[in-house]
């Protein structure tokens, strides 16, 4: 497989699960986490479900690295904004000019932050342990349009070729002395000679690409067969429904006020 996506090829029980099961689990977790108004619930799910899943899937190290790169900066910014500048804060703990550290602000920041952590880490574990090829096959098997599978698969595979092309055009420009430092306007100018050829290629190639798809009978039948079958045991199908219904139950309980 190409290295475009975040997916890590490992052997683990999590990798073996049907991708649809993992996707339903992820969506159920997100639904529950965003429904329940307590900040410790998302953190509990991160600690009890998401991190153990990452360890089980043998992607814990990468998850930690991505947490530090992607999420931690956002969390720091979040606590700075909402901790210090929360508009409805009344219990002031500390004050400096316009900045007011308030209990309400901190509570707000931790509520948002814990949900965001569960959302991002949960999604990352899903992406890290799910082969996109298998994901597309499994989703098509449960009824997703082959057109969606085509667009996603093709995009993922063309990315490396385009990045290489972009890189070489950029290098060529640097070799010709075109500045990619300096004012934003100067740097932006470096983009135009790159964009022109990319877009021209996109438009001139489209006929040939669509001819190739038509020649391969794409869309000729509403029920295509599939060379690769992703196993979907009954147990997983039952588990999917249970997870989905539990998440819905949580939402309902929150809405009617049982969980408050």
């Amino acid at each position, binding site marked *: 497989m190409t290295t475009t996506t975040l997916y890590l090829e490992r052997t683990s029980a999590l990798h073996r699960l049907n991708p649809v099961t993992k996707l339903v689990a992820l969506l159920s977790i997100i639904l529950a986490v965003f429904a329940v108004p307590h900040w410790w619930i998302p953190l509990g799910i991160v600690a009890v479900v998401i991190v153990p899943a990452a360890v089980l899937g043998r992607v814990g190290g990468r998850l930690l690295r991505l947490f530090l790169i992607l999420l931690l900066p956002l969390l720091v910014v979040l606590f700075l904004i909402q901790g210090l500048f929360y508009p409805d804060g009344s219990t002031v703990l500390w004050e400096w000019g316009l900045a007011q550290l308030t209990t309400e602000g901190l509570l707000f920041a931790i509520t948002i932050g814990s949900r965001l952590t569960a959302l991002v880490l949960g999604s990352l574990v899903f992406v890290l342990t799910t082969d996109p090829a298998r994901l597309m096959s499994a989703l098509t098997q449960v009824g997703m349009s082959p057109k969606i599978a085509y667009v996603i698969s093709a995009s993922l595979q*063309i990315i490396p070729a385009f990045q290489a092309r972009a890189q070489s055009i950029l290098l060529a420009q640097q070799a010709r002395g075109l500045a990619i430092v300096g004012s934003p306007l100067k740097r932006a100018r470096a983009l135009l000679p790159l964009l022109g050829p990319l877009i021209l290629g996109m438009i001139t190639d489209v006929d040939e690409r669509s001819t190739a798809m*038509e020649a391969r009978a794409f869309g000729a039948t509403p029920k295509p067969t599939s060379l690769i079958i992703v196993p979907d045991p009954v147990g997983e199908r039952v588990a999917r429904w249970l997870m989905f219904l539990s998440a819905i139950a949580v939402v309902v309980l929150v809405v009617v006020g049982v969980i408050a």
Partner: protein
Amino acid sequence: MANANAPMIELSGVGFAYEDAERFTLANLDLRIDAGTVTGIVGASGAGKTTLAKTIAGFIPLNEGGTYRGAASVAGRVLAEGTLSEAAAAVGLVTQNPFNQISGARFTVREELAFGLENRSVPRDEMERRVDEVAARLRLEPLLDRSPYALSGGQMQLVAIASMVIMQPPVLVMDEPTSQLDPAGTRLVYDVLSTLSDGGTTVVIIEHKTELLHEHCDSIAVLAGGLIVQHGTPGAVLADDRLTSWGVGETRVTTAARLARERGLLPVERALPIGVDDAVEAFSTQTGAAS
């Protein structure tokens, strides 16, 4: 169904101009190709060879905007009157650039090969059998589990050809199928084409390597100025004096023999040889006469 003597491919008075083009790319073109033959199409670049390939395959006018006239039929059916999907079932078209021919809908060569079969609802065990068969023929076995985009240009071209051959269309049209292949790969492709044509497939190849066409084709058609200006056996077409004026390169054997004739090594009245065998014969009779 067409009777046995009717041509498999018949174009009569076909003209085509692309949307907003200033002139017709194909002009009142006539072409007949018999079933089960291998036909080479040659012509200068810009002569309209790719347009002709798309017209034979029905993609013109079904998939391309422009002005179209005349009638083109395959196995007695006018493709322009049906749907694109019917045309695609009748004629397999391998386009020029393998990068664009790879669908991208699948992540491995194995699945890329099966993609067209999946879209025709071919059962799984038959797909597996056909994938193995075509992979063996074009020596693709070591590549089956790799991403089609991670291949070299030549490998990609073989995959593109294999993914069309596997669909077993009655007519196969290929636009410069060996442009990125090394001699071994080229030989592999032409061997497969010969086998296919022995099995009854009608093959049309656009190719500028005239040596290859001389060796493998039953007939060659020359496209110039939007018309078929010459169509006949490889021997007759490639020996035509007007060949270079149509922008088609003669074989290197012919070039060598021409130079030899200019130096008096071959008699002026003798037709120039095209293939290696002809040349050996020409020079051996010549030396035989001299001694």
